[in-house]
């Protein structure tokens, strides 16, 4: 059966594939944001800090459809059954990652409202922790999606 990837019906009926597609956006945006933030920290360069902020904003926004599509996949594909093993770990790590991304964004947003826009140093630790959780979640998600499988 030939499939037209630009057909709306095909896209909508692609079951939970949207989660696998959408997840790349917050991962890339957040990693880029952290990289820009570390650069801004080292160079004291304002454009780097701005780039970090706006990447973080988009990463946080993208976590919403990602979490929603993940939960929808759980309800749709597994009818909300009690999760175990890798599926449960992926869900828990995914929620923690999303929470940490929002926390980092919140720290940056609050700092931007201050007159000197100074960011607390502890946010670098939170960012590093978030990167670890994002990496672990993506690693488990890769296994679940069958990236290691045939074709």
């Amino acid at each position, binding site marked *: 059966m030939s499939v037209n990837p630009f057909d709306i019906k095909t896209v909508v009926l692609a079951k939970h594939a949207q989660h696998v597609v959408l997840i790349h956006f917050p991962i890339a945006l957040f990693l880029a944001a952290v990289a820009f933030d570390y650069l801004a920290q080292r160079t004291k360069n304002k454009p780097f800090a701005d780039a970090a902020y706006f990447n973080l904003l988009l990463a946080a926004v993208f976590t919403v459809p990602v979490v929603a599509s993940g939960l929808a996949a759980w309800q749709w*594909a597994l009818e909300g059954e009690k999760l175990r093993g890798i599926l449960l770990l992926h869900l828990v790590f995914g929620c923690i990652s999303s929470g940490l991304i929002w926390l980092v964004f919140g720290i940056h947003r609050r700092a931007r409202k201050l007159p000197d826009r100074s960011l607390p140093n502890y946010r670098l630790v939170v960012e590093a922790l978030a990167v670890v959780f994002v990496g672990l979640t993506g690693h488990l998600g890769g296994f679940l999606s069958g990236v290691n499988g045939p074709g």
Partner: protein
Amino acid sequence: MIRKSVCVASLAAIIVLFFTISPSITAKAQQPAAVEVKIDNFSFGPQAQSVPAGTTVTWTNRDDIPHTVVSTDGVFKSKALDTDEKFSYTFAKAGTFAYFCSIHPKMTGKIVVQ
């Protein structure tokens, strides 16, 4: 006279033995064999399986990650099977039963019940 008695006794023994054993042989021949489908490396093996009606098919997940066995027509549906977990379904009626893994919809298979 004794030889005749021995012959009759032997014949009787053979008849009794035949009637004792034959029902179990017949029953074994009539009992549908259990069929196993392995889930491994993101595929069902064999992908298509023909079985007589009344056969119980057992799917075993030999993969490292969870899979499900879900009938396209909603006839049967397993929970998420972790490694080495099994799911069985007895096919009472004839027909073709297509199924897939709801976590990985590209994984498909079918059971043809004759």
